[in-house]
Each structure stands twice: as C-alpha cells, then as structure tokens.
C-alpha cells in the first residue's frame, strides 16, 4: 500500500504499524479468543461446575450438539422465536424509520430539535427501556388506560399473561427502542444521494413516486443493507429488554436464544451444554450476516480502503 518513506530517526514504517496494533491484538486474544477456545472445548464435554476442573471432564464428542438439534425443543423454539421476533421488528423498524426519514426531507421549522427528540430512544440503556415498558404495560398502566378510553371496555388486557400479548409487548418495546437507528442511518443515506440523477429524472417528467421507487431507493440500497446488518447482529442477541419485561414468561413463551443460554448456564449450571448452544448460534448468525452482506460485500470493502 504505502511506500516506506523513511524519515530521519524513525522506526521502519511497518514495525511502527505492527507495534500500534499490538495492544489491541493482545486484548482481543486474552479477552475474546481464549474464552472462545475454552467454550469450544467445553462444548464437547459433559462438564458441570460440580465435576471439579474442566480438564477432568469427559469428552462426549458431538452429544451436546445432537441433543440440542434433535431433542431440545426448547432450544429450537427459542431459535425460531428469536428469528420471528427479529424479522417482525426489523421490518417494522425499517418501514417506520424510512417513513420518518423521508418526512425529514421536507422543510419545516424546529427540525433540529425534532431530530434530537426522535433519536432519544436509542440513547437510553436497554435495561431501563425494558423496565419502563414493563411499567407501561401493567394492567393498570397508561397503555391499558388509553386502550380502555378508545374501546370503552371494562378492563384492559393482561399483557404478560398471554403468549401473543407478551410477544407483542417485546416487539413494541424493541421497535420503539431501535426505530431511531434506522431513521438515523437512512436519513444519512438519503442526504448523501447526489442531486443530479434526481433532477434529471424530474426534468424528464418523472413523478415524485417514480423518483422515489426507481432512483432514490436503488441508490439507498447499500445503506439499507448496512442498517439491516447492524440491527440483525444486535437483535439476535436480544436479552436485556426481555429480561426486564417478561424473564421469558409466561412459561417459556418469550424466551429468546440469549435468555435460554443464560438460564441454562446460570440457573441450571449446564455450562457445557450452554456453550454448545452458543456455538450453534454463532454459526447461524455468521451465516445470516454473510447472506445479508453478499449483495454489497465488494462495495463495503472498497469503502474501507
């Protein structure tokens, strides 16, 4: 890439480059790679904390993995549920975020303040968001009050007692929390679209609708994919909000993958089994991101040069 233009008294440039990378590499090695290796080894054993040291554990080959995929319906359900919640959330967040972003292309007063106000939800920590919505969804809470006002029935629903309502509560919370991220990224993308193709289309007689669907949206595609990838990576790990809202209940009906692994490891102490589940999830996530990124991989790598 760069010519080694060595100035007087300087380190050879590649040595300095390597030296600068070293602290980051050491931290990543110690705090990310080592635990991953330990977890990977553990996932092939039957180790639990009462078995003494991890090295004394019996190797059981792929038993944990087989158990998870073939017999553990709770795991499979958690995976399906997480994918379902993720799909619904991302679709809603995208549509709402894009609509808001398009509205922000118009001229109106107080735009700067409104922009800050719309970003506020994503700045709040997930635990607090979860707790706040837990309060909002109480049977005597404000959401039920409004519902009763509109529909005039005697009592509002018990949000955390029924499966569809509890899942809806999780989805509403998640959409409220993260629509601003889509809004932010898509608005950045819209503002970066060059004026000329748009102007040319208008001169040639295109309607605003045609301009949007045929010119703006295709040019926005890379940004849209970036937004989806970033959000997909985070939402498959969904934990904090659900932990505060439902703890996976009623029963296991809102249990996400992360919540299930957490319960396996820290409530049932099935650490080896939990590690195997985690590796399956990692593989699945990597495959998913790979698929999502495929259309823009070259563009993305170019942009990073």
């Amino acid at each position: 890439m760069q010519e080694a233009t060595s100035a007087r008294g300087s380190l050879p440039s590649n040595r300095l480059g390597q030296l600068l990378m070293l602290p980051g590499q050491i931290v990543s090695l110690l705090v990310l790679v080592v635990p991953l290796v330990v977890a990977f080894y553990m996932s092939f054993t039957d180790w639990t904390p009462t078995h003494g040291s991890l090295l004394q554990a019996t190797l059981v080959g792929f038993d944990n993995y087989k158990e998870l995929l073939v017999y553990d319906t709770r795991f499979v359900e958690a995976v399906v549920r997480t994918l379902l919640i993720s799909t619904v959330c991302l679709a809603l967040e995208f549509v709402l975020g894009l609509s808001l972003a398009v509205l922000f292309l118009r001229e109106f007063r107080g735009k700067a303040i409104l922009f800050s106000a719309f970003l506020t939800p994503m700045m709040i920590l997930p635990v607090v968001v979860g707790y706040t919505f837990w309060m909002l969804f109480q049977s005597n809470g404000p959401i039920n009050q409004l519902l009763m006002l509109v529909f005039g029935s005697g009592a509002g629903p018990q949000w955390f007692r029924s499966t569809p309502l509890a899942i809806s509560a999780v989805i509403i919370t998640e959409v409220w929390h993260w629509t601003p991220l889509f809004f932010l990224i898509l608005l950045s993308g819209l503002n970066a679209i060059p004026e000329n193709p748009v102007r040319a289309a208008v001169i040639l007689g295109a309607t605003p609708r045609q301009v949007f669907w045929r010119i703006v949206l295709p040019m926005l595609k890379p940004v849209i994919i970036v937004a989806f990838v970033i959000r997909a990576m985070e939402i498959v790990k969904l934990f904090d909000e659900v932990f505060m809202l439902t703890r996976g209940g009623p029963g296991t009906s809102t249990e996400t993958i992360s919540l299930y692994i957490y319960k396996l490891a820290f409530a049932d102490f099935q650490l080896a089994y939990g590690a195997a589940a985690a590796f399956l999830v990692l593989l699945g996530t990597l495959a998913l991101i790979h698929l999502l990124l495929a259309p823009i991989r070259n563009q993305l790598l170019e942009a990073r040069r």
Partner: protein
Amino acid sequence: MTGRKLTWPLAFVLFGALIISLFPVFWIVMTAIKPPTDWNASPAIWVPSHPTMVNFKTLFDPDAIRAYGVGGVSQAATNSVFGSLLASVAGTVLSVVIGLCAAIGISRYANGGKATPLIILSGRMFPPAAIAVPFVIIYSNVGLIDTYRGLIAIYVAGTLPFSTWMLKSFVDDLPREIEEAVMIDGRSRLMAHIFVTIPLIRGGLLATTLFIFILNWSEFMFALVLSYSNVTTIPVQLARYVTATAGTLYGVQAALAVLAMLPLILAGLLIQSHLARGMTFGAVKR
C-alpha cells in the same frame, strides 16, 4: 430531494411520532417524582399532584431502602453508581487509547488486510450469554470474579471493535500529506502521529469517547453474571430491586432509571452528528 413544504396531515403524523418517542421518557420521569402512594395507583396517575424527590433520597439511604423490605446485596444504590462510573470510565479510556493505536496502525500502515473488518464484526455477533460462560470459569480460576479489573477488561475488549473502526474512519478522513509534511521536517513517524494526527482528530476522539461511554454504561449481562457483592453497576442494581420486590418498588426504581439515562441522553445529544458513524463502524459517515 429537499425543499418541499410539510403538509398538515404529514405534520400531524410527525407530531404523533414525537409523542410516541417521548412518552416512555415522560412516564419514567413522572414515576420517579411520585410519592409512594401514587406509585401504583389504579387508574394510573399521569402527573403527580405532589411531586417529590423522596425516591432519589431513598436510593442513597440504606435504612429507607430496608424499610421497603429490600436487604442483602440489593440495598442502597450508592455502590452501583460508583461502580458504573468506575467501570465505564476506565473501560472507555482504555478502549479509546488502544483503539486509537490500532486505528492509526490500520489506516496509515495498512495492517490487517481486507478481511479484518468482517473478522472484527464477527466478534460482535457472538451472544454475550455464551462468552459469559467461559468468563465465569476463567475468572474464578484467576481471582478476577467480582472485581472491577475483571469487568473493565471485558468492557475494553467488548468495545474495541467500535472504538477502532470509528477512530479509523476519522483518521481516514485526514489527508496523509499533512503528516508526511511533518515527517519530512525531520520528526519521526510516531512524533508526527502524536503531535499532528491526534490533535487534528480531537473532535472525532471526543465523539468516540462519548460513544464508547454510552456502550459501557448500558452494558448489563456481564455485570450481572460476574458480580456478586463487591461489584455492582446501575443496570444490575435496577434488576436486583425488581427481583427483590417483584418490581413493586416503582418510584425508587424509576428514580434509579432516570439517574442511569440522564448522562446517556446528554452524551448522545452532544455526539448526535457522529452517532451514525459509531453505530455502523464508520460505514456511514454523516
């Protein structure tokens, strides 16, 4: 693209969206200033007629907390505020310093190759619940469990992808020629980076620092599984109150939640023009 006026129906839609965006924040702030009798009134009270700061006082008064039947490790919130500050600030400073070195290394010396962005991103894909399992085992063997050192190490590693890529995008924006002019002047490369590169990206450095602080301050799961009695952070304390009282400590919990989100809203507003860059690892710049 821009320039068209907002019509009345659209303004109405925008107004509705604004109400929805801010209502939960309004609710938690209102709950935080409700006296105990208003906490769980039925029908719910929207704006308390006698606003009070008593919930905030209760948070920092062990006797008052115990009067609500909360004891053991889940007592006053003083330790958790201290713990959140310590872990987030130390984790942020280290993450930004290490990330800055790596950012300059990648941007100026082309280390890492083409695949590095994707490898680093994949580090963020692993569910934290899974990494937490080996951590608990390793940490209990090396005596790092329930220590701030242990938590800070995780915060540094967990945010390093963000700090590295956000700072790299700021260094990339800086023309190489500026540094090279100084190098020809006889100063060494390292000196050129310290006296030229870093001062020129100070705005980006500040934005990155605040962004990493937001991430660390919000972290929940690692703090939850790696802390017992010594180490507490605000999110863990909030979860403990909820567990200890089945969530019925409404006003006190809301007060803690307000304390937790105030610094983040402030930091977020300060860096809002850089948020897109931070969240997308530098892929979206403005």
